[in-house]
């Protein structure tokens, strides 16, 4: 069992980052993170609450091409779930890239 670092069960080390350049870099990292979050959450909202609920009835006039699924119903019971999975993996890819770009990644393999 490796030692827990920082100690578990309490907050991480509380030394403030004082270097102004690092502070500015962290602030920019956070702004980019928020921009990604907003974009992904808009998609999250549109596929579920939008297509699956608010627009479900009008979309049901069409079928998912090549299948017997009414489109609104498909979004509510299948499509939104697939979209959720894809969203999380896109987020992981974006954030891992962002971590490296701003030098805040944790190192190690994969």
């Amino acid at each position, binding site marked *: 069992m*490796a030692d827990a670092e920082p100690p578990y069960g309490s907050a991480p080390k*509380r030394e403030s980052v004082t270097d102004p350049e690092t502070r500015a870099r962290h602030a920019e990292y956070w702004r980019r993170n928020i921009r990604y979050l907003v974009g992904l959450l808009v998609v999250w909202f549109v596929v579920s609450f939008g297509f699956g609920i608010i627009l479900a009835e009008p979309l049901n006039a069409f079928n998912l091409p090549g299948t017997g699924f009414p489109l609104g*119903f498909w979004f509510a*019971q299948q499509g939104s779930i697939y979209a959720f999975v894809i969203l999380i993996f896109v987020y992981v890819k974006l954030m891992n890239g962002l971590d490296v770009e701003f030098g805040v990644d944790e190192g190690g393999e994969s």
Partner: protein
Amino acid sequence: MTVQSWTFLLVAASFALYIGIAIWQRAGSTQEFYVAGGGVSPLANGMATAADWMSAASFISMAGLISFMGYDGSVYLMGWTGGYVLLALLLAPYLRKFGAFTVPDFVGDRYYSQTARIVAVICAIFVSFTYVAGQMRGVGIVFSRFLEVDITTGVIIGMAIVFFYAVLGGMKGITYTQVAQYCVLIFAYMVPAIFLSMMITGNPIPQMGLGHVDPSTGLSLFESLNGLHEQLGFAAYTSGTKSTLDVFFITAALMVGTAGLPHVIVRFYTVPRVRDARISVGWALIFIALLYTTAPAIAVFARTNLINSVSETPYSEVPEWFNNWEATGLLSFDDKNGDGLIQFVGPNADVENELTVDRDIMVLANPEISGLPAWVVGLVAAGGLAAALSTAAGLLLVVSSAISHDLLKRSLMPEITERGELIAARVAAGAAVVVAGYLGVNPPGFVAEVVAFAFGLAASSFFPAIVLGIFTKRTTREGAILGMILGITFTAAYISWFKLLHPELNTAANWWFGISPEGIGTLGMLLNFTVAIVVSRFTPEPPAHVQVLVDLIRVPRGAGEAHEISA
């Protein structure tokens, strides 16, 4: 071999596996007991999260609910999966960076207040206990239906198993047992679904079979089923009967509640790094989505099968499974017009309905209705038990760590030794198992109702406090505490009013803005956010060390990469 001997064999084999894992993965330190040593691989954690999350309700009840609710059942499908997007984007990575043992740990430290910690402990115990009683009940029901032991004996056997691996192994034992339980439950769920899909549509993949169009008639499964429904006076399967607003609010409450459930959040403390926490939510959702996208297919197949096999059938000619389930009381026929035929009709028909079907039958009886081999029936029983036991164990760990860690170590007895804390954690886990078992044997009348509301309570208490704690620096302890108290009290009061005190008033006309008790957690959450933000403006800003803490959790580097990845 008969159905019953197959069931005994498969259930006993799965239990032996869980116990073997528990002995192999004992916890030796509090860190192992609370967060499995923080060295769980993201894939294994994803699988454990999926088993932790999918309870007896997901495994046994959900497909049946969708089968009877049609489109309205979408609230469960979207609600119980969409929450993982919120968890991945807004909570898991930051809480992992924070690096604590429990959810109240974060709330207490971020809001620099013992009061906030205690409020969070109470919310965690309240949410977890309402949830766990239903799981033990589920264990008892599976035992009584398939193994013909009474519910009390079933609950006691279930308690003994959970006691053994939760108390001995803590989070470490639970994690690897849950990985095994996921494998058992997903196999048990998919096998009958694949059989059914093959039989009905010729396509072995249920998610694709569901979109099947019959080449001879040109009708899709949905068109045929909607046609049957119209003919029999049910609402169209693909439209549903709930108002759009209510569907919106219920879905939101389930999503946010999922993201705020302490037993789910705590699983992401067990991986080594922040990036592992992110990807681990993705794995968890893939494993969950496998079952959740299959459930709507089972729902349609089962609904169509049920109508086709019983509607207007002479009672004297019903298949054997009909009589078997009648004997359990979950299926009942009352020949109101005395014509000897089964009229299974909806509220819009001009004759009276004569058949009452318990929704839980749909998954449990499906293999029998479709004439699948005896081992498949036994497998379904083992899968239902895996789902119930894995969720119960995860919840019990939250209760025990809330008591031994948050209440004793961080509040009442800070000088307690690690050894003492570990003993306290085991005693608390043991006591929690016994209380949960008691509630399973003697369920207060409203347990089944209340389980669904654990989500509303989690949505209206934890979620806003944690999100504001990460994304704003200005939110103060006064704001967070008042927000949590008002949010959960409002939600609990609205639910109790309609579900416990005045069930006769529980109709759309009496609801506020037409929002049902199931969806009120969304409003409670908005109330919590509003109160927390407004009160924070009028109270002194958080101390400097807390603002530094917020800066630190926003950046992944330094989460403690010193762990070796095991498994």
